[in-house]
């Protein structure tokens, strides 16, 4: 529904586009007002994604305006049911979510799942990094696996909350090296900062978190990065992947957007179109570089298939870790 002012604005734009400056027709907003729903508290990764999206979409003239709503809690499983029920078939509403939510839905046995939304696009991913304190005898991923095989209980690894992406990666490393995932000694911390402190204070043998979280400490020589969970070498990062070192593991903590259930084909196409224009823009690429996000766009049906596949993969590893039944 249009308010009078928006109507005037829209008609003025349409007039300008159609009559005076036809070559600016592309700059007309794809969707005039969007509502971005963030199932997390302000300040976190999903919130930053939404705010960066809003900023770029607006500056590129792809939207007229945006409203961001935060409903945080329990890895997104508090916000998800609210999004599904409140915005049904609303073509202007989009929710930011990602891998953490997939894990939380499984671990919390949530009734409302991601397959009740309309997957629109994957936007970014953060690969994880495995680090050890600078004075550790472990030099590379092979040493780490050898220590893990010798006695998993002796290799205490710090990271984020139990069942989160960091824990999942350690479980995958253990499984790929033939170590029982339930035997690993994972020490969960509430935030990346506290896990980092435990590493710097030499309290634990290793740590796992998003690459960006450790990058500065590695540069300063306080930590040693011994492997990253990306699929291939990353430009500007002089650290081999886990795969290269014989640990067949790949994990991206991805983030993407979802539309509400019951979206019409036209609305879905419009949202996909909007995101495709977003990720193609220079401004978005700049934001990604600035924030250490890897742009891994994937839209429409391919994304829907990816979400399904990733859900099955995460469910399996959480079962291996004894966190899901």
């Amino acid at each position, binding site marked *: 529904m249009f308010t009078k002012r928006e109507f005037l604005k829209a008609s003025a734009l349409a007039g300008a586009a159609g009559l005076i400056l036809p070559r600016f027709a592309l700059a007309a907003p794809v969707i005039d007002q969007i509502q971005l729903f963030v199932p997390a508290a*302000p300040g976190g990764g999903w919130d930053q994604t939404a705010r960066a999206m809003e900023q770029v979409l607006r500056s590129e003239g792809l939207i007229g305006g945006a409203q961001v709503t935060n409903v945080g*809690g*329990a890895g997104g499983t*508090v916000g998800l049911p609210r999004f599904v029920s409140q915005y049904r078939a609303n073509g202007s509403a989009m929710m930011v979510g990602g891998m953490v939510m997939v894990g939380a839905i499984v671990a919390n046995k949530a009734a409302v799942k991601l397959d009740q939304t309309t997957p629109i696009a994957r936007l970014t991913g953060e690969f994880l990094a495995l680090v050890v304190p600078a004075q550790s005898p472990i030099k590379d991923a092979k040493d780490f696996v050898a220590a893990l095989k010798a006695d998993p209980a002796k290799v205490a690894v710090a990271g984020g909350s*139990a069942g989160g992406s960091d824990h999942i990666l350690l479980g995958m490393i253990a499984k790929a090296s033939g170590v029982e995932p339930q035997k690993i000694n994972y020490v969960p911390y509430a*935030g990346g900062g506290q896990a980092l402190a435990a590493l710097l204070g030499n*309290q634990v043998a290793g740590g796992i978190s998003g690459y960006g979280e450790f990058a500065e400490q590695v540069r300063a020589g306080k930590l040693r990065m011994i492997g990253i969970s990306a699929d291939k070498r990353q430009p500007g990062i002089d650290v081999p992947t886990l795969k290269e070192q014989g640990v067949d593991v790949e994990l991206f903590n991805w983030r993407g957007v979802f539309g509400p259930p019951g979206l019409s084909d036209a609305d879905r196409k419009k949202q996909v179109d909007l995101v495709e224009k977003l990720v193609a823009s220079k401004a978005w690429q700049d934001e990604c570089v600035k924030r250490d996000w890897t742009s891994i766009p994937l839209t429409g049906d391919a994304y829907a298939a990816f979400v399904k596949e990733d859900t099955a993969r995460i469910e399996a590893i959480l079962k291996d870790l004894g966190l899901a039944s």
Partner: protein
Amino acid sequence: MESLSSLVGGFGVALTPQNLMWCLVGTTLGTAIGVLPGLGPGLTIALLLPITFKVDPTAAFILFAGIYYGAMYGGSTTSILLNTPGESATIVTALEGNRMARSGRAGAALATSAIGSFVAGTVGTLGITFLAPVVVDFALQFGPAEYFALMVLAFVTVSAVLGSSAVRGLASLFLGFYLGMIGVDLQTGQPRFSFGLFELLDGISVIVVAVGLFAVGETLYVAARHYAGRDEIVPLKGSLYMTREEWSRSWKPWIRGTLLGFPIGAMPAGGAEVPTFLSYWLEKRLSRRPEEFGTTGAIEGVAGPEAANNASAAGVLVPMLTLGLPTSATAAIMLSAFQSYGINPGPLLLQSQGALVWGLIASLYVANVMLLVLNLPLIGLWVRILKVPPPLLYAGILVFATIGTYGISNSVVDLVLLYILGAVGFLMRRFDFPTAPVIIGMILGPLAETEFRRAMTISNGDWTVFFTHPLSAALLALAALGLLGPRIYALLRRDRRAETSPRGA
């Protein structure tokens, strides 16, 4: 001396008219949100994050730091005047501060808290300037075993707030443990006491409990007494500011509070609450007038914890600026603001962004002076709040508490919890259960549990870690001394008296 010249350069940045304006906006806004129950600096900064797209980084961080310091100042005002602390770090201030207000010394309580905050904030900022690397090295020595020992020491402080009946006090403490346990267990990822409610999986926010028990509980209590026709009129006696005696009773607690607050604030799991508990307990033990504690209100019990609270705020900035380690929710949000500028906070921040960091540190000194200038003259205005007819005043508190709580999470469940806890708070007041131990239990219980289990996980179940780590052993010894020392001392004295009196007779 290198720090000194950098600091001078920092003042060059902080004292530009534009940055002074941001500092003033930040400190004013911070004081205001500190006064309102429920709203805290973390949430405010998070809501202001989009500003980072518009202004340059130095201005944004000066604004954020102003809000952060300002909120620490403002939080004590409602605690003292109305017994409704808006955040967990000022709960201890309410204990003695409100008693002082009730016996007519509201002005002095506000003054000692404002000046104490200034002293602690300034000493803390000096600490950031000159001691940051030393403090952060010390803080990193703290592993799970040391934290657990620190929590044990903090538990000793519960004895200072138990009130007249130990059974009632301990019941309150255990209620706090229970509330703290609700939600997903961090170590195993399994929910506890969440009754299938997804809203409870992240646990209950300490802010909701504090605002519910104190602000809503107090409102209901006052309303009940109003109905019975027994409105309390708070008298104002003597000078609005501090007397010479009050000055001499305040300065030592300010220093002791600062010394407790700054290093604990710098610890990754230290926080602002633990040093306030420790300071309150210490001041009660050391005071020459212990009889004033819990009766007419002792000024030491306001001065110490307030200084500890503000020094810890400075302490939190140490690991953030030197290592890029966020150790509180507010620091984490400030760090995410760094990221939206493409600045990577870390050990190299000081070299790569020297002007920004030193400008920020210099603006902390400026913010402290501004806050003192802003707050001291306001005391006269604030105490007049007590003259507002209680029905209007408490209705206003209820409105702000409700809006603030809903604003944190957009959650109706939190609102329902707020009012349930308010009713619990009312009943606790009515039947003479102290409410402070609930908050202490809720903060310390989960921390102690998590750190204990972490220590045991890392040591592979070896119990001796708590005694073989020297820091941990020392803290446990201090805790034992704090708990048993006074009793042994009393026993010895009785023995001596028993020995001497027959001879004298």
